[in-house]
């Protein structure tokens, strides 16, 4: 080993001893790739490589000095080729210790820059010959300026950097040598290894200062940007925390002031309203549970609104709020009479209900079903019932409803779910005993969404509806105080179980006399009012109304009548508005001026007695109607043609009529070949309207007998009744409507089955007195009454004697 030594600036003069720290020219070498130990800097080194550990061991046994050089090639540790930069640092090992993973930790102090002359040994570790690089000093003005600038910049870096401790700034101030300053700063900056090496290799102090200045500027920019990004991110996070903190503080302040925060106030208010709502136990428990849930929920939660809405529903329902029933039967009758003409049956039923209510307060509400043609006042009857009883009135039309949830509501799991129409109606009424009208119950549909009619079963059963459970509410609501009234045009389409729960009250069509009265009492005053006319400005004579009824409307109810009266009112109103002052009156003569030419003609008035044409009576949902059965005969062979949209039952009754005639040819006095070589065609006009039912049996039989016998049928006789093959006549329904229809059409003679005689009681006296009724038991009687100039033989019919 060479004994030549390199002098350093490290000198010790303890007491009477002086030692100069010198570096041997021959040093063990440590190639590094990730760090540089600058002169005068104490820094740690970690050694994992076995070769280098051996090298350190050797150094420790001698002068404890090694040369640290950066390897130009970084990356793959295993097969890294050796290519060292030629400027390195001689370091002194202060301490050595083993790390838990077996690698070696060194605390070293940089002594001096050295230059690698040549590598003298590669195994077992690197050793090389080095030469000294004397430390350059300089105090030129330019250097001083650079130093000041660098110190300034570095202070900024230290103040921004989250890593560098503030003490470093002070340490810099104590370094008076520009060269050492650059080394210390460089060793504290996070730099890429080759950049560090370039600082180390730059021997000229001035150049090194310039280089460092550039690096420091770059570093400062990076740090500023980094801290800006950081603070932006932090401020975004802190925004939420800030809001939370402020809210908490506000709560605390409000608490201090004895005030309540908005939310607590809201919860308290809800609590109070639950107290006041007077809910039954079950509902109350549900409400309190929900309130508890709500109070623990942040208002931003999506669930909050759902919960809040549910609570609002629970609270706002009239659990025990009810209106007092006005139970004065006499006054109620007055009100009902005021609102509606006639309809005595219905009024009686209402008054009976009220009477029972008076005697027994807890009686269950009846469920009435008003059945009748449109425009007869079913809905308005419901309203006046509510008025008579002093109850709230709610109306909901079930027509076309197909969704069960409409009745019972949606479960709360669905977004935007609400209670069903029943509960909604009750809430709207604000009382738990309204008159609840369910219109058009015969037009409830059903599809994949369920069957609303079945859901209605629960609602309309007085035995069950005290615990009606809405899907949304989930707690039972007592509907037993509600008075349900349903309306329908026909009963056929109402499901049996539903119909069974209701008390059906038929409201048949009105006759001309009724309509006149209704018009005078209600329609004319109402239309006058609606069109802004004074009583004196609009007058209409009874005969004019009658003309409108018979020539401009044909209906069971009064809707069109009201409309026509309205038309008259409007025309009068227009004339007044145009400045005409004369008295406007609607008279029978000037009706066409108001309403145009006559719209309907009495069918009978146009007719005369004809062969093969008989007048029947039919029942339709919109009231009774007359219909004509025409038959004709042509060459052919025993064929029978039935046209006019006849249903199966009607076709069969035509067959029965023909069979009866064929089997009784002799008695009926018909010639034998009337049928053999002929085709018969029976047609029921207004072919577009579907018709069905057995009640046209007599009419068809009469038409056919007339055809075959050649005797014309009296045109002013109408008939109805089902026939048997024996010629017996069976009773049919809808007598009142049919009779009214006959009267409307100007027919005064009506043939009815004997067994329907009892139904005559339904027909008002003033109608009865205008008409002649014939009650028949056998077909032969019908032929006697209807066919002209010919009396049929009636012998041989045994039952005849019974009459």
């Amino acid at each position: 080993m060479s004994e030549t030594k390199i002098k350093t600036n490290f000198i010790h003069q303890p007491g009477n001893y002086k030692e100069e720290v010198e570096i041997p020219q021959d040093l063990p070498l440590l190639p590094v790739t990730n760090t540089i130990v600058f002169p005068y800097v104490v820094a740690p080194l970690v050694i994992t490589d076995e070769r280098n550990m051996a090298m350190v061991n050797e150094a420790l046994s001698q002068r404890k000095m090694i040369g640290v050089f950066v390897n130009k090639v970084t990356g793959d540790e295993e097969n890294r080729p050796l290519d060292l930069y030629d400027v390195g640092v001689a370091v002194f090992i202060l301490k050595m210790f083993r790390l838990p993973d077996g690698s070696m930790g060194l605390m070293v102090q940089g002594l001096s820059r050295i230059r690698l002359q040549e590598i003298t040994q590669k195994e077992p570790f690197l050793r090389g010959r080095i030469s000294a690089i004397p430390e350059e000093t300089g105090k030129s003005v330019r250097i001083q300026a650079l130093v000041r600038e660098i110190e300034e910049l570095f202070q900024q870096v230290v103040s921004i950097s989250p890593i560098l401790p503030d003490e470093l700034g002070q340490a810099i101030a104590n370094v008076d040598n520009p060269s050492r300053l650059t080394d210390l700063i460089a060793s504290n900056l996070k730099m890429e290894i080759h950049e560090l090496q370039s600082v180390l290799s730059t021997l000229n102090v001035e150049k090194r200062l310039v280089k460092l200045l550039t690096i420091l500027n770059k570093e400062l920019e990076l740090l500023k940007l980094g801290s800006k990004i950081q603070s932006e991110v932090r401020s975004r996070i802190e925004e939420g925390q800030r809001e939370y903190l402020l809210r908490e503080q506000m709560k605390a302040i409000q608490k201090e002031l004895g005030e309540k925060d908005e939310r607590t106030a809201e919860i308290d208010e809800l609590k109070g309203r639950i107290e006041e709502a007077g809910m039954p136990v079950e509902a109350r428990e549900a409400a309190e549970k929900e309130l508890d849930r709500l109070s623990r929920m942040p208002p931003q939660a999506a669930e909050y609104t759902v919960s809040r809405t549910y609570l609002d529903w629970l609270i706002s329902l009239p659990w025990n709020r009810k209106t007092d029933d006005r139970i004065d039967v006499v006054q109620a009758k007055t009100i009902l009479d005021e609102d509606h003409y006639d309809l005595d049956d219905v009024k009686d039923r209402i008054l009976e209900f009220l009477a029972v209510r008076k005697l027994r307060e807890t009686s269950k509400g009846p469920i009435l079903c008003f059945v009748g043609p449109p425009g007869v006042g079913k809905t308005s009857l419901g309203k006046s019932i509510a008025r008579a009883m002093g109850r709230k009135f709610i109306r909901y039309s079930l027509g076309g409803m197909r969704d069960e949830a409409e009745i019972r509501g949606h479960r709360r799991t669905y977004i935007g779910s609400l209670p069903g129409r029943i509960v909604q109606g009750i809430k709207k009424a604000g009382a738990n005993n309204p008159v609840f009208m369910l219109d058009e119950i015969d037009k409830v549909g059903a599809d994949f969404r369920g069957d609303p009619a079945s859901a209605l079963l629960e609602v309309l059963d007085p035995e069950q509806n005290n615990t009606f459970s809405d899907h949304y509410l989930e707690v039972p609501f007592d509907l037993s105080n509600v008075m349900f009234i349903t309306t329908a045009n026909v009963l056929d389409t109402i499901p049996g179980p539903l119909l069974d729960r209701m008390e059906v009250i038929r409201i048949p069509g009105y006759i001309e006399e009724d309509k006149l009265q209704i018009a005078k009492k209600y329609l004319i005053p109402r239309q006058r009012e609606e069109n802004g006319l004074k009583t004196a400005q609009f007058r209409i004579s009874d005969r004019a109304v009658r003309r409108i009824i018979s020539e401009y409307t044909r209906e069971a109810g009064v809707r069109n009548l009201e409309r026509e009266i309205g038309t008259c009112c409007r025309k009068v109103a227009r004339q007044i508005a145009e400045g005409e002052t004369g008295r406007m009156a609607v008279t029978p003569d000037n009706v066409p001026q108001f309403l145009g030419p006559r719209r309907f003609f009495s069918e009978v008035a146009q007719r005369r007695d004809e062969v093969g044409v008989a007048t029947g009576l039919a029942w339709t949902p919109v009231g009774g109607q007359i219909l004509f059965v025409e038959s004709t005969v042509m060459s052919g062979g025993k064929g029978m043609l039935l046209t006019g949209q006849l249903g199966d039952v009607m076709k069969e009754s035509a067959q029965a009529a023909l069979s009866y005639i064929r089997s009784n040819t002799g008695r009926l006095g018909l010639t034998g070949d009337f049928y053999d070589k002929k085709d018969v065609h029976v047609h029921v006009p207004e072919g577009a309207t579907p018709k069905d039912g057995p009640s046209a049996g007599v009419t068809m039989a009469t038409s056919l007998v007339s055809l075959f016998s050649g005797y014309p049928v009296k045109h002013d006789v109408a008939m109805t009744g089902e026939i048997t093959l024996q010629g017996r006549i069976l009773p049919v329904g809808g007598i009142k409507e049919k009779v009214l229809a006959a009267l409307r059409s100007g027919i005064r003679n009506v043939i009815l089955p004997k067994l329907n005689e009892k139904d005559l009681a339904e027909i008002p006296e003033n109608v009865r007195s205008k008409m002649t009724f014939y009650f028949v038991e056998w077909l032969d009687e019908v032929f006697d009454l209807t066919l002209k100039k010919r009396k049929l033989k009636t012998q041989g019919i045994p039952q005849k004697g019974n009459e």
Partner: protein
Amino acid sequence: MKPKIHKAHFRPLEEEMDFFFSSFFGASYPSIYRKELAWRPATDVYETEDCFVVILELAQIDPRDVAITFHDGLLLIRGIRKTMPPPEPRRYHKMEINYGPFEQKIPIPGDVDTDNLSAQYNNGFLEIRLDKTRTFSVNTINIKVE
């Protein structure tokens, strides 16, 4: 010979070095600047009712190789441990014992009687006693190790 006294250096870098060791494996650490290559012996400083006591752990020292000076409230102890482990083939597992020059600067927090300073080297411990007193001297005092 009077040793040259350096200006008081109240921020011993050795202390920073201790911090250094504690964060040896940390991702970040500051590099430390040090001008001397002297080590710092472990030291106790305490005061009794009538004196300050400074004890340094200095094994294997020749008292003649130690210089103690007191100047302007700063006690400066410098010296050298010449003893080296015998030159034989070896493999280190730990190397913490310092050899060579050492130095310790201790600011004394109070007035001392500069006439009455004593130092004793015994069993590897160097003990320096400084009596509390009113007397005040700005002169540099050399303390002889007994």
